[in-house]
């Protein structure tokens, strides 16, 4: 258990330190890199809890895809840091107020938390013993039986978000020459080449 404890405290400390660095780093690219470090250590914590499927999905989705696009955008931004700091004191009261409201809400939530056993079994899918089935199977069993409508609804929300992003950014420009691979491949010699007899001393 000593090793697990050491690993837990290492992951936890690095997660918190990286999270603090995300908001305190001066360079936004460094912030994103620290965010990635925090994701990674959170995945480590999931592995320690025995939730290896969620850990891997966290790394694949957040670190492998979402954060790459974040980094992509942040690197391309041209940010003037002096200008960014100017409004700091002006926005401090309202920012602090929002922070305090969130903190109070969290405290309310924590104070009313009841550590009672969660619903783990249902008639449709009796929960198997934890060591009898991998957690990928276990997740699949609840996700596609009890929670199938919620799962579908989440998919629909994502679809709407995707269509929204496409509609917002779609624009058709005039005069863009696009490559049509099918048309190019279907072109034959008699469509492309014309043979003409040229008489000496004359032109076509």
């Amino acid at each position, binding site marked *: 258990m*000593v*090793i697990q404890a050491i690993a837990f405290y290492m992951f936890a400390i690095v997660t918190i330190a990286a999270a603090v660095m995300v908001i305190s780093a001066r*360079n936004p*690219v*460094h912030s994103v*890199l620290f965010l*990635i470090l925090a994701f990674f250590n959170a995945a480590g914590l999931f592995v320690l809890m025995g939730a*290896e*499927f969620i850990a*891997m*999905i966290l*790394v*694949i989705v957040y*670190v*492998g*895809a979402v954060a*790459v*696009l974040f*980094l*992509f955008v942040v*690197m391309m931004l041209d940010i003037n840091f002096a200008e960014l700091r100017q409004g700091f004191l002006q926005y401090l009261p309202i920012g602090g107020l929002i922070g305090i409201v969130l903190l109070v809400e969290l405290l309310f939530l924590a104070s009313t938390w009841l550590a009672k056993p969660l619903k783990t079994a249902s008639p449709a899918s009796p929960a198997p013993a934890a060591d009898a089935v*991998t*957690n*990928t199977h276990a997740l699949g069993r609840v996700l596609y039986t009890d929670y199938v409508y919620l799962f579908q609804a989440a998919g629909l929300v994502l679809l709407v978000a995707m269509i929204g992003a496409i509609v917002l950014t779609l624009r058709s420009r005039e005069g863009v020459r696009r*490559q049509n*691979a099918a048309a190019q491949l279907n072109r034959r010699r008699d469509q492309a080449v014309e043979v003409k007899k040229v008489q000496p001393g004359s032109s076509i």
Partner: protein
Amino acid sequence: MASLWQGYLWPGLIIVAQIVAIILPLLGAVAYLTYAERKVLAAMQLRKGPNVVGPFGLLQPLADGLKLLNKETILPSGANPIVFVAAPMLTFVLSLVAWAVIPFDAGVVLADINVGILYLFAISSLGVYGIIMAGWASNSKYPFLGALRSAAQMVSYEVAIGFVIITVLLCVGSLNLSAIVKAQETVWFCVPLLPMFVIFFISALAETNRAPFDLPEAEAELVAGYNVEYSSMTFALFFLGEYANMILMSAMTALLFLGGWLPPIGIPPFTWIPGPLWFAAKVAFVLFLFLWVRATFPRYRYDQLMRLGWKVFLPFSLLWVVVTAGVLVAFDWTPK
């Protein structure tokens, strides 16, 4: 005290020994992959290739490595020093840690985890960070352009690779790599899933930034892409990482589609050859395909690359996932 030794130190030493036993042959394989690449390309172009250092030029990789070690490590004055140095280390480390879950034979694997294939997918999707960090930290135009191209390219082809993996998983019913190989005892997946095998191989080329998709380092346009500003060992780490990733993607191809350590037919003349040798032979075959493709095809244009990834591979692999699932359910072939 005794329990500390029995419980932690001794198993720890065994794990370290296993790691060394995997990494040393891997680095040797990387060194001789560069030699093999030059020899194969030379043979295909009717040249001799490296033939001066040692018999048949066999010591050439060592000479190249020593030469790189002797060079000066240059840190550009405009670069972001920490990220600049961290990027090649990240590339190199990521190319090595993935080998923890690769099974070389039945039971011969460092970490036989439940979600082995997801771990491999996660690690290979992290490879883009080394490149994009290098491109940004160099504070120079060509590396930045190369890094942006690479990021877009790797993210695009990961989607296709994900669907290919899902198809294989549908046929196996497990995320464990050993289970994936064992499921191919009757027939290798490259036969029933041939289109996905082709898509996976082409996506692997794009994922490792190899020709004909080597746009991030297109010499003619970007000098050398994201690693222009790197020299000496920092460059060597990128180089080693890139070739180790090639071997890793070949190993993934062998595990997913070519039956891993299994012989082609389970009858005596084939079963006499031990499993790790079969595995190595399959990896070497896929690597030869990588080199063959490089010697044969011209580089893709960038818009063609994106078209292939998003408009051809993505819809096709999505369709094939549905078809595979439909066939498995219709004929009741789903793995129990």
